[in-house]
């Protein structure tokens, strides 16, 4: 499921990544180059639409997800219970429609394992992630 590849494109001038791919960069009159991105990322924001447009069933869950690599992507979700901004999600396609789903602890650990190369990097990455969580928790407690 995590291995899903998302078609995207990159601007050769500003390196902006967009998904799905575009012919021209939104900010430059240059042709974009096709790339693929792994179907994992972080939730930037999400909403539940209670009166969706014709052709969609209520409630309709939508999320804006920032893929690893930086492209942002709009997709559907089956559920938003317990979902938070910043949460790690996996994206998969069913009949050409992209859906996000929460990543469990095991999947997150496996991702770290895959993403970081040497053992030292792995330890650093896990430590950074833990520090970030503690920091975020402190912010929430303060506000």
């Amino acid at each position, binding site marked *: 499921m995590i291995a899903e590849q998302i078609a995207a494109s990159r601007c050769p001038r500003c390196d902006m990544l967009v998904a799905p791919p575009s012919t021209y960069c*939104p900010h430059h009159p240059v042709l974009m180059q096709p790339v693929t991105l792994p179907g994992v990322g972080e939730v930037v*924001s999400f*909403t539940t*639409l209670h009166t969706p447009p014709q052709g969609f069933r209520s409630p309709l869950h*939508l999320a*804006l997800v920032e893929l690893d690599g930086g492209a942002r*992507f709009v997709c559907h979700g089956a559920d938003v219970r317990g979902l938070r901004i910043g949460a790690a999600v996996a994206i998969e396609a069913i009949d050409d429609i992209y859906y996000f789903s929460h990543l469990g602890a095991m999947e997150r650990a496996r991702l770290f394992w895959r993403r970081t190369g040497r053992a030292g990097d792995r330890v650093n990455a896990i430590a950074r992630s833990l520090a970030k969580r503690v920091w975020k928790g402190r912010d929430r407690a303060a506000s």
Partner: protein
Amino acid sequence: MREVFVAGAGMTRIGRRSEPLPELMADAAHAALAEAGLEAPDAIVVATMNPEEFLGDGNFASHVATQIGFADVPALRVETATSSGAAAFYAGFAAVAAGLRQAVLIVGGEKMTHLTTPKVSELIGRSIDPYERAYGATMPALAGLVTRSLMSKTGLGQREIAQVAVKNHANAARNPLAHFQQAVTVEEVLESRMVADPLRLLHCCPISDGAAAVVVTAAPSRVRVAGIGQGTDTLAVRHRRQLTAFTATRMAAREAYAMAGFGPERVDLAEVHDAFAPFELISLEDLGLVPPGKAGRVTLDGDTALDGRLPVNPSGGLKARGHPLAATGLAQIVECVWQLTGRAHGRQVSGARHALAHSIGGLATNNWVTLLETTG
């Protein structure tokens, strides 16, 4: 560049209207012309967002010109989605400033209440990026994404956001032309039906009919156009790096202040595009009217209320005056003109000399800032 003045302003009551749109636009146009003391303008700029689909009518500039009795006056139509009225104002301003015309009638309007809400929502939603639309994204859905991100990033709370709607309803209750004439409480806002989590029904502007018009001239009058700016951004929300500020507003504000030769500190009152209540808070900071991170606080403190330091949306805003799409940008300018000339009966801000109108097109893809000042 020649100086440009607003010589006349007029608008219809906003709300559910039974008259055909060209008739509403004729009413607003003739009111503006009468005030300017003009029988006929040199040219007409018409703003409608989507009469082809709302009404099934095309060639709308000629349609409206003929309806008003000006088949012989050159007319054209301007469209930038929900900010079309402000864009039309720019086109009329530019024609006079360039010396091409002496007096231009600018008239905007929209009629939608004869259609069902899902249909209106779908038609307005056509201004959204096609890919995002294919996932069911509507304006409220995208505004919901923006609002959740805003609350998470800035710590802005439900009460601050709800207070925008409460304030604007209170102002509209003093405006006989407003769609909503009744006040609402914070509790009513927070208990209203969920539309696009965390946005509720009373955070959102209504579906309205109406028209507004102004006459701009090279001949001096009591209100001068001090500056106009346009700002743009990507059609797709996913192509933006930030959700909690609108680049298009910042760009438009920079341009307008530069043309005017003064900054936000001189603005006495503002009409701001609050299609969704949190947009007023975002916009106050984008426009430089409030320091970063303070929009919620000043709203709760009453600084933006009618009797506050900087009254915002004295007309009731899109939220409560109503949002007849292409009429809105002009209705904001009409309110500013009335405020600057002491004719905003029942809601007059005393001593205002500089006013700002801010209009958002689409999900902040094509925004405008217009600055007006008194000449007296």
